[in-house]
C-alpha cells in the first residue's frame, strides 16, 4: 500500500454516465489483487476533505483503470479531468476476493459498477465461469464484452427489458440455478447494491455454498483509522455465544464471506 501521483492516460465517457479512467501507475498497479480498491484524491481538494474509493477495474504493467459513475460532487469534479492531468491515489487497499478455486464453478453476480470490481476475478481465474449482471436498463450493463472476450458466459437482466431478460438479476440467476447447475459446486463472487448482496448471501446460505461479496460503504481514511466504514460481522464472545462486532470495510473488507455478515 502506498501513495502515488499518477498521470491520466485516457478518460472516456461510456454510456449511462459511466466513465473509464486509465492511469499510468508504475507502483500501485502491479500490487493490485482482484477486489481491492484505490482511494483517489479529488482535483480541487479545497472543496473536498475526503478522498473517494473506487474498485480497480483493470491493472496491468504500469496501468490501472477504474470504471465510475458520476453521482455527486466528487465524481463530477473527476469528470472534468483530461489525459495528462495528475491524480493522486492511495492503494491498493483492503482485502480482495480469494483466488478462484479450480474445483468449483465461479459465478459472478454484479449490479452497476460491480462489474468493474469483478473483472480481475474473471481475468485471473484458473477456470471459466458465468457472469450474471443486472441493471435498470441497457445503459447499466457495463463491460459485458470484456468478460466475453475472456470466454466467460455473460447473462444479462434489466428491469426495463432493454437488454437481456426483463427482471432482476436474481431472477435469471435463480432460473439458472434451478435448471443448469446440475449438481456442480458453485462459488459466488458478488458486487453491487446492498439489496443484491443480501439476496446472494441468502441463496449462498440456503445452498450451503461459498460466497464472497464486496461491500460499498462511505469511507473516510480508507486506512482503518477513522472507523467510519464499519459493517457488522459475526463473532463469538468469550463464552462462545454468537454476537457481532464491527469490521472495517476498508481494511477487513471490502470483500467479506457471506457467512460472516450480520444484516441489519
Amino acid at each position, binding site marked *: 500500500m502506498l501513495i502515488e501521483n499518477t498521470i491520466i492516460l485516457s478518460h472516456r465517457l461510456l454510456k449511462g454516465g459511466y466513465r473509464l479512467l486509465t492511469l499510468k501507475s508504475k507502483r500501485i498497479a502491479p500490487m493490485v489483487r482482484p477486489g481491492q480498491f484505490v482511494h483517489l484524491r479529488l482535483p480541487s481538494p479545497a472543496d473536498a476533505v475526503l478522498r473517494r474509493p473506487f474498485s480497480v477495474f483493470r491493472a496491468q504493467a504500469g496501468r490501472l483503470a477504474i470504471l465510475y459513475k458520476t453521482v455527486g460532487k466528487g465524481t463530477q469534479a473527476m469528470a472534468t479531468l483530461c489525459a495528462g492531468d495528475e491524480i493522486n491515489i492511495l492503494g491498493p487497499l483492503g482485502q480482495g476476493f480469494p483466488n478462484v478455486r479450480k474445483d468449483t464453478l465461479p459465478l459472478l453476480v454484479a449490479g452497476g459498477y460491480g462489474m468493474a470490481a469483478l473483472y480481475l476475478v474473471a481475468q485471473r481465474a484458473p477456470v471459466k465461469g458465468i457472469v450474471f449482471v443486472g441493471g435498470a436498463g441497457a445503459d447499466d450493463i457495463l463491460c459485458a464484452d470484456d468478460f466475453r472476450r475472456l470466454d466467460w458466459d455473460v447473462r444479462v437482466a434489466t428491469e426495463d427489458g432493454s437488454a437481456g431478460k426483463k427482471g432482476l438479476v436474481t431472477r435469471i440467476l435463480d432460473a439458472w440455478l434451478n435448471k443448469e447447475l446440475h449438481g456442480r459446486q458453485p462459488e459466488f463472487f458478488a458486487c453491487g447494491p446492498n439489496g443484491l448482496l443480501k439476496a446472494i448471501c441468502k441463496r449462498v446460505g440456503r445452498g450451503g455454498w461459498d460466497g464472497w461479496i464486496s461491500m460499498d460503504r462511505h469511507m473516510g*481514511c480508507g486506512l482503518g483509522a477513522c472507523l467510519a466504514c464499519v459493517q457488522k460481522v459475526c463473532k463469538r464472545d468469550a463464552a462462545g455465544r454468537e454476537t457481532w462486532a464491527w469490521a472495517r470495510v476498508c481494511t477487513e473488507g471490502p470483500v467479506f464471506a457471506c457467512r460472516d455478515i450480520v444484516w441489519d
Partner: protein
Amino acid sequence: MNKPKPDLSVRIGGLVMQNPVMTASGTFGYGPEFARLMDLNRLGAIVVKGISLKPTQGNPTPRLVEVPGGLLNAIGLQNPGFDGFVRDYLPFLRHYRAPVIVNIWGHTINEYASIAERFNDLPGVHGLELNISCPNIKHGGIAFGTDPKMARRVITAVRARTRLPLITKLSPNVTVIAEFARIAEACGSDAVSLINSFPAMAIDIEARRPILANITGGLTGPAIHTIALKMVWETARAVKIPVIGMGGITSAREALAFIIAGASAVAVGTANFSEPLSTLAVIKGIEAYLVRHRLPSIRALVGTLETGAVIPKPRGPGRPCA
C-alpha cells in the same frame, strides 16, 4: 556554509517531543494504520484514538459526512477498551521512539479516574490526553467539558490517579474557553489541547432525515480553523501551561498560525484522511519557515503575534482548583 538546523523540540510537562507536530486523536487510529505509509518516528507524538475502560461499539452508520470545508463525524468513540488497546496495539507502538499519548474518556468521574490509573507504569505510554467533551451520564448528559464544576471534578480526579503528563482536551462548545483552560491549569493539568469538534448536523433534504445515524456529529476540518485560532490565542494568554492547538490544519500555514497565536505544539486531524502524510508536510513546512525567518527554535516563535495594542486578558480571575 551550512546553516544550523533550527531546534524544533518542545516540552509538554515532563514530555519532550522532537517537534511540535502531533496527530489528533481519532484521526490516526493507533499507529499501525499509517505505519506502512510513513515513519512514525518522525512525529512529535502519536496521539491515539480515545480509549475507555471497557470496549465501546460506538454509533450505527453512517458515521461520517463531508460538508463544505469540513467533515461531520459521529463515530461514537468506538474502541477496544483498555485491555484491547494494551493487547492489540501497545506492543506495536513500543517499537517506536515517538512518544505515545493516549486519549482517554469515560461517562462518569469514576470511569475517567480508573482508566487514567491503569496507564501508570505501563511502558510505552508517555502521556494522557483527557477528553472532557463526553456527555456525563450521571448528570443528564451535559458534557463534562462545558460545565466548570464538572470539569474541575473530573480533572482533579484524573490528576490524583495518574503520574503521566496530563493534557486536558477542551471542548469548543463554551462561551469562554480560556475559563476552562484555567480550570485545567489550576487542577494540575500539564497542558491543554484545543479544540475538539463542534456539535453540528447535516440533513438529507430529499429524505428529510439526518444524514448521520446519530443525528448530530462533530464538525472538524478547515471550516473550524479560524474559530480554533481565536480560542487558542485567548487560551494562551490566560494560562502558563503549554497549549496544543488543533482544528483545520492542512498545511504548515495553519500550524504556524496556532504557534504564533501562542500554541507550543499542534495536532493534525481531518487532514490525515485526504493526505495521510500531512503531519510530515507540516513538520517540513514549519522547519522551512524557521529557516526563512532566521529563528533558532520553534520556541522563539510561540506567541509572537503582534497585535499593536494592549488587549485585556480574558475575564475571570485565575482561581485555585476545588
